[in-house]
């Protein structure tokens, strides 16, 4: 009696478990892929947050910092606070504010105070340096200074005015210097803390970066000797310097000091805001710097109580919007130093401007305006308007509005320095104590997020590029509250992905995809609509080319072709499926595209008329052998194929000649020139389009089709009728700029042929399998009733195999949508949205292939590419599942036959 050995049983158990695991791994692969795509694109949609990390204790020394400036080092938990128009002596407070990496609460606030002093002659040749003083020491430095934004300071030295830049210098410690640091410092460094020694701050090494030393440095860029002599009434506090981006000159805005009552621009002395433009030149050779001041004629006649909060803003680093009246601005072009003749006005429905702030990127301006008691927030395309202002004849020019909607008026506006967003301080809506800080995104105008603040704390605030914001109250000693606005993917929302948006300096709202460009102020345009349009257009045009060819060939090879030839034709077409798409793409771009551009008219003529030429051959050429064939009931197909090949050669030669003749007569010698508006009658073009419709309609008239004279009439009459129809229609519609526009060499026609080439074998083999699986008894039944071979095919076989054919087309469609290399190589990858077959296109798959290698990992652009991959995946997933469902239902029904 034989017993199965234990080893065999164990082996059996192990391998079946292993196989089960691997079997399920395939499901995991698909699920994993989908999860991964979802995982990488989901962060796009999580809400922006504005969280308040709480109060930082009192501000330290008695005199309050009514406004300040915050400078941050990338990853050192240190913030440098600067006095802002304090008027008093120049006191700079360096203080650790940002929570050390990982911990929520900010590190205990070790702070350090510096004061500007005259530097000793020999020190570093700089007139002014920073000296560390004891915090408590109330000694006043002899200079007063006021901060002007990202570290720049105005320093008053007697009658002279200095413009300097405060920087945090970071020097890395190499292995050796770190080793020979004094022992105590090194040990303290490694205990998770930073330490302050004389005027340097040491930072702990981390996994990514070694230890470093931070020091504070003040460097004077420009000094104007007689500033205060020329405008005696000005005080340092009332002078504001707005630097021109990426240039060294800028604008001084001197607002007259309001009388003690603090009301701004009181009625008695109407505001005489003075605008002084400083242009600075540096002699490259001697390094000697010279500055020239020029006062701009300001027509500001702001009436009492109306002052435009937010200073004149530099637009695109070149123009200056100077508020001329609550509803209009004059434009000053710093490049050629003129004032624009025209006035830029705000659209009436927005009323008069209350506050204004230049957004990041400098092209658009965010305004709050009041009309009939209701406040409107709007983003105006100032860049475009200013450029127009100089050219246009009419005096009043309306600034185009990017978007506008109702909102509550704010007390204070601070633009985000590195993202298209603005912080708005709003009084609390419920009359309660704490105020509301709202961060609003500026491409579509949606409110990104809001945070509550202790009421008084919103008096003034500073922000830095990484989204940190320090808000504190100048009145009480309530201390500072630190907020963090993190919006990694600010520009992305359902509206910006799929909606129509008016982008900066664009004529009108549009769907456009422009992920990157030269400068980083560039407004990234992430609308997926042009890409989806490109994918669908490429796939549909290629299906238009591939499906008729593939299905008709499948019918011929399964119903009519004899077995022997079929065993040769079927493998050749299946081999066609394995041609790499990179070869197809390459051939399309290098060989097919130029050739088609050369013979465009003949290609169109052949494409449109070839099916009808074949049909005509069938109707007219009842040649004896074909009669014999029909007599025997079975089409000895190889001889018919030879006839067709012969017919092809003749008709292609004939049609190309006709094409040339047509091009010279109807389209003025060159279709491409004609398409972009050249000479030529459009009637013929319409005629070409109508040709198929005319044929089909004439053919389906109830006249007894069998009559020969009727058939001949259709073929002769067809072209004439279609051209005649074309000329009527072309009378009052221009085909050229809506359906058929400019001719691009690598256009959708080339794509439809190249991708059609890739899709044909797939549809062919699936369709052929569907047709051959129709049981033979049906064919025999139909033939026995005296039906001709084609009647059997058309009336019995095709309806039975219909769902199989349909699922074949669906799989072909799925392959077309997923096709990458062909579309990358054979189109111009231009994201245009037209129906025109002569235009290029940019499909999602091609877009990913081209852009992903450059996209930074984790950036918005990177995640949007993943999102488009997810859309592609879902598209093909539904298509394939539907095709699979159809095919299984079809196979079940066939078994019943």
């Amino acid at each position, binding site marked *: 009696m034989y017993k199965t050995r234990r080893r065999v049983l164990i082996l059996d158990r192990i391998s079946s478990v292993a196989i089960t695991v691997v079997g399920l791994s395939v499901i995991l692969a698909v699920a994993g892929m989908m999860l991964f795509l979802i995982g990488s694109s989901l962060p796009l949609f999580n809400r922006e947050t504005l969280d308040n990390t709480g109060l930082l204790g009192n501000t330290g020394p008695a005199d309050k910092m009514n406004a300040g400036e915050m400078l941050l080092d990338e990853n050192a938990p240190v913030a440098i606070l600067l006095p802002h128009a304090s008027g008093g002596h120049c006191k700079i407070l360096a203080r650790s504010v940002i929570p050390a990496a990982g911990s929520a609460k900010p590190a205990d606030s070790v702070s350090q105070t510096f004061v500007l002093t005259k530097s000793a002659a020999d020190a570093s040749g700089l007139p002014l340096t920073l000296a560390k003083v004891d915090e408590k020491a109330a000694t006043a430095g002899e200079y007063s200074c006021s901060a002007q934004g990202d570290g720049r300071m105005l320093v008053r030295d007697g009658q002279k005015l200095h413009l300097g830049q405060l920087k945090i210098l970071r020097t890395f410690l190499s292995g050796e210097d770190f080793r020979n640091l004094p022992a105590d410092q090194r040990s303290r460094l490694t205990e998770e803390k930073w330490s302050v020694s004389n005027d340097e701050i040491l930072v702990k090494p981390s996994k990514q970066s070694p230890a470093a030393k931070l020091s504070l440095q003040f460097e004077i860029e420009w000094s104007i000797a007689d500033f205060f002599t020329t405008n005696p009434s000005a005080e340092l506090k009332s002078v504001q310097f707005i630097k021109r981006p990426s240039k060294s000159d800028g604008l001084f805005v001197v607002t007259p000091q309001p009388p003690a009552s603090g009301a701004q621009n009181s009625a008695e002395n109407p505001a005489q805001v003075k605008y002084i433009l400083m242009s600075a030149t540096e002699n490259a050779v001697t390094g000697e710097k010279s500055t020239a001041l020029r006062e701009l004629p300001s027509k500001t006649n702001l009436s009492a109580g109306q002052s435009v909060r937010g200073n004149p803003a530099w637009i695109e680093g070149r123009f200056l919007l100077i508020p001329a009246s609550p509803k209009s601005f004059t434009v000053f072009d710093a490049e050629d130093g003129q004032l624009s003749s025209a006035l830029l006005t705000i659209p009436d429905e927005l009323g008069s401007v209350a506050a204004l702030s230049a957004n990041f990127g400098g092209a658009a301006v965010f305004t709050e305006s009041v009309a009939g008691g209701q406040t409107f927030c709007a983003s105006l395309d100032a860049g475009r308007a200013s450029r127009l202002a100089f050219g246009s004849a009419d005096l009043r020019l309306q600034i185009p509005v990017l978007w506008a909607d109702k909102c509550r008026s704010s007390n204070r506006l601070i633009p985000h320095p590195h993202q298209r967003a603005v912080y708005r301080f709003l009084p609390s809506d419920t009359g309660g104590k704490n105020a509301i800080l709202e961060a609003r995104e500026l491409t579509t105008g949606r409110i990104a997020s809001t945070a509550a603040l202790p009421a008084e704390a919103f008096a003034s605030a500073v922000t830095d590029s990484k989204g940190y914001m320090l808000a504190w109250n100048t009145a009480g000693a309530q201390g500072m509250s630190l907020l963090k606005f993190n919006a990694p993917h600010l520009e992305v929302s359902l509206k910006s992905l799929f909606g129509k948006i008016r982008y900066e300096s664009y004529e009108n709202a549009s769907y456009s995809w422009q992920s990157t460009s030269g400068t980083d102020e560039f407004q990234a345009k992430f609308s997926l609509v042009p890409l989806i349009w490109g994918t669908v257009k490429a796939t549909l045009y290629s299906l238009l080319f591939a499906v008729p060819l593939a299905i008709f060939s499948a019918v011929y090879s399964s119903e009519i072709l*004899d*077995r*022997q030839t079929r065993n040769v034709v079927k493998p050749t077409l299946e081999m066609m499926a394995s041609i790499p798409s990179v070869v197809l793409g390459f051939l399309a771009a290098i060989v097919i595209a130029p050739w088609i551009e050369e013979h465009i008219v003949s290609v169109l003529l052949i494409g449109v008329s070839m099916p009808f030429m074949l049909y005509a051959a069938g109707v007219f050429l009842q040649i004896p052998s074909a*009669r*014999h064939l*029909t*007599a*025997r*009931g*079975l089409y000895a197909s190889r001889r018919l194929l030879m006839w067709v090949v012969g017919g092809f050669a003749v008709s292609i030669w004939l049609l190309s000649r006709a094409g040339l003749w047509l091009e010279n007569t109807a389209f003025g010698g060159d279709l491409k020139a004609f398409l972009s508006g050249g000479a030529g009658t459009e009637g013929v073009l319409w005629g070409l389009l109508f040709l198929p419709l005319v044929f089909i309609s004439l053919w389906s008239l109830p006249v007894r089709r*069998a009559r020969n004279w009727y058939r001949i009439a259709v073929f002769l009459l067809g072209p004439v009728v279609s051209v005649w129809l074309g000329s009527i229609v072309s009378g009052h519609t221009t085909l050229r700029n809506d359906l058929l526009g400019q001719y691009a060499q690598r256009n959708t026609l080339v794509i439809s042929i190249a991708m059609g080439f890739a899709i044909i074998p797939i549809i062919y083999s699936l369709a052929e399998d569907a047709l051959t699986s129709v*049981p*033979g*008894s*049906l*064919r*025999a*039944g*139909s*033939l*026995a*009733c*005296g*039906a*001709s071979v084609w*009647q059997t095919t058309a*009336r*019995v076989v095709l*309806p*039975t195999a219909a769902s199989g054919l349909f699922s074949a087309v669906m799989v072909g469609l799925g392959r077309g949508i997923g096709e990458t290399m062909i579309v990358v190589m054979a189109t111009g990858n231009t994201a245009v949205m037209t129906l025109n077959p002569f235009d290029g296109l940019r499909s999602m798959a091609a877009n990913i292939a081209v852009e992903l290698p450059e996209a930074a990992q984790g950036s918005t652009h990177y995640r949007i590419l993943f999102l488009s991959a997810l859309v592609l995946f879902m598209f093909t997933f539904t298509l394939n599942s539907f095709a699979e469902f159809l095919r299984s239902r079809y196979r079940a*029904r066939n078994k*019943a*036959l």
Partner: protein
Amino acid sequence: MLNPNDLPAPFSHPEILTGPAQISIQNFNLWYGKAQALHNINLPVLQHAITSFIGPSGCGKSTLLRSINRLNDLIDNISVTGDIKIGERSVYERHLDVTSLRKRIGMVFQKSNPFPMSIYENVCYPLRISGISQRNILDEAVETSLRSAALWDEVKDRLKRSALDLSGGQQQRLCIARAIAGNPEVLLMDEPCSALDPISTAKIEELIAEMRGRFTVVIVTHSMSQASRVSDQTAFFYLGRLIEAGPTKRLFESPHTKATQDYISGRFG
């Protein structure tokens, strides 16, 4: 078992020619590629009479049947000599229009093959392919054919339903209705009842009996009882040769050749 070469030479059957022959098969041979399937068949089929072909499976009786309406053309390498005439027109004439020929010959297959269309469409299919689309003619033809196939009462209220929902017997009768819808002169039936239950078989046999006088019916069957019940004339085939043919009663009671005697008595087959 009988080996082919000691079979009697083919001979003419004077006593069968009592009426005008509708189909006359004159020394007809057929090859599948190199293998010969039919050897020198001479057989007249009486007009409006029911002829049955009997013989063991693989003896070529179905092949001969399918050669009459040239359905064998579907198979690739078929070659044929001799002739089959319907009336005086030869079936294998050089420029014969096969579709017109098949319109005059209805055929019913072993496994019922209704088209995946409605019952109405199935029956009027032969008329539609001849280009007839007037409603009234089609309705009349469908009613006539379904009545003569004894199916009208069962389906008259659901003509629009799919033919696949009918039972096996009903489907076969539908195929018969379809075959006679074009008013053929000849009706070929290839083992029509082999896949049916006894009740449906009985119904089909009644139908065939009624057709005597209206169509020339040729029925291939492997059940000798069915042949004796239904047919006026029977032909016995063995290994591609016509062994004996004659009136059914005479052939079953006093067969001329020993081979027929053995087959009828069931000694081989």
